[in-house]
């Protein structure tokens, strides 16, 4: 190997290191750069872990507790408390694990120390196996067991060394280094695209919660409570579909008068609503039995293909 070759290789190493460093800095800058953190409440919420969820921040979670915590943050920001004071306020109540990035201490420190130690170890191993081995006049295998002979400073490698097995680990090391560099580059470039643009946090919809609960209650045949939940939902979302569910629930909780009233409200808006006519007719069988057949006949006429139509026809003929 010539002196020029050695200088060339040094240049290559220096360039490689510089490239790695540049990529590492770029990656760090991209991941630590200022995101959409103009809103102090959202920024603080993103730093807190939702205690009722798995791996979700208070900013992202839809759980009622997270919503309450966002409100508590907003209140305190409005009172002019500093982010540090607010953070401490939460740590006092939920413990240090509420912070998405807890202060480095104890086992947390190991997460940083172990990779550093491993990298240093790998670097040492690389240095050892990359260092040209030279035992003048003796091929590698014949060398006395134990540590390899060290080359005196400035001595050149033997003429036969380039093509011997000693070269293979070196190639492997270089391939690994290039692979690592490509990996870092890929991560640095792709990091931006991996994070989807944060969707606007959907507001918790009390009507949806009430509806879900009402349906659960219906499943448990607690129609009284279900009707109550439908009434709550109706207050948030005055909607005929909800009104019909309420009417059905009332009918089943033996409140035909209420069911009739609610069904009539629906029919005021849409006079030919099949479900409205069905509930009204069924309710009327108790409240005013004289009117029921007429309403039910109208129901069958309006919706002959309704799942309940066959049953109602049977009811009318009997």
């Amino acid at each position, binding site marked *: 190997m010539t002196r020029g070759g050695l200088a060339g290789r040094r240049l290559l190493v220096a360039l490689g290191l510089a490239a790695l460093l540049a990529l590492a800095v770029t990656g760090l800058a991209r991941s630590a750069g200022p995101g959409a953190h103009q809103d102090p409440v959202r920024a603080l919420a993103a730093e807190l872990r939702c205690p009722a969820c798995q791996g979700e921040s208070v900013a992202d979670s839809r759980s*009622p507790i997270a919503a*309450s915590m966002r*409100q508590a943050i907003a209140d305190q920001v409005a009172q002019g408390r500093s982010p540090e004071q607010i953070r401490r306020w939460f740590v006092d109540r939920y413990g240090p694990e509420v912070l998405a990035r807890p202060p480095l201490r104890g086992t947390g420190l190991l997460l940083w120390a172990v990779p550093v130690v491993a990298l240093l170890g790998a670097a040492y191993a690389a240095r*050892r196996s990359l260092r040209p081995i030279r035992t003048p006049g003796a091929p590698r295998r014949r060398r006395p*067991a134990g540590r390899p002979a060290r080359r005196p400073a400035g001595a050149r490698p033997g003429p036969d060394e380039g093509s011997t097995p000693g070269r293979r680990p070196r190639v492997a090391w270089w391939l690994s280094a290039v692979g690592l560099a490509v990996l870092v580059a890929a991560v640095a470039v792709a990091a931006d695209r991996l994070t989807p643009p944060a969707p606007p946090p959907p507001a918790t919809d009390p009507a949806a919660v009430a509806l879900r609960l009402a349906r659960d209650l219906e499943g448990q045949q607690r129609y*009284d*409570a279900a009707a109550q939940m439908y009434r709550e939902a109706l207050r948030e979302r005055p909607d005929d579909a909800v009104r019909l569910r309420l009417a059905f629930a009332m009918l089943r909780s033996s409140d035909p008068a209420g069911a009739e009233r609610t069904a009539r409200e629906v029919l005021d808006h849409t006079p030919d609503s099949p479900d409205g006519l069905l509930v009204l007719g069924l309710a009327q069988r108790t409240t005013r039995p004289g009117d029921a057949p007429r309403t039910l006949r109208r129901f069958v006429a309006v919706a002959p293909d309704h799942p309940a139509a066959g049953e109602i026809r049977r009811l009318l003929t009997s």
Partner: protein
Amino acid sequence: MSGRPRQPRWWRAGPVPTAVLLLSVGLGAAATTGHLAGAGEVRQRPAVPAPALVGTTLAGDRFDLAALRGRVVLVNVFASWCGPCRDELPLLVEAAGRWSPQGLAVVGLNLRDGPEAVRALLREADADGLTVLPDPDGTRAVDWGVRGVPETFVVDRAGRIVARQPGVVTAQWLQEHLAPLLAAA
């Protein structure tokens, strides 16, 4: 020299990488076991002064937890939209009826709920007499460090939180945590 037994490959790799590897594995193991050991200790903390709890109850009365100093207070965080809370309510009503002569007060902190839904729930559970403090935006619950509903706290006669139960309480839990406090009147 060639007659000497060959050293294993890992040894020839050198003592330093081997030591690094062993160290890494050791540290990893230590971190994992340490983490596992620490996981179970979240539940019971030493007694801390209960945060303030002041406001107007569902019935329109003034409520202040500090005014109940000298009594044992069971604070139950609940909501009508939470199924387990609904199931738990009869037990709390029963506890209130059973232990109030000995100085127990039960208060429900109603998290992010509508007054009508709560009233309906109380009627259904025969719990109309229960003191309910609405917490429409949930900030009172957060002040108490609530992690979810239901969650129950026991405040002793000196106004300190001496027990907390995330999730549903059982009759046995109530017995264990209330009876000693109420007996020491």
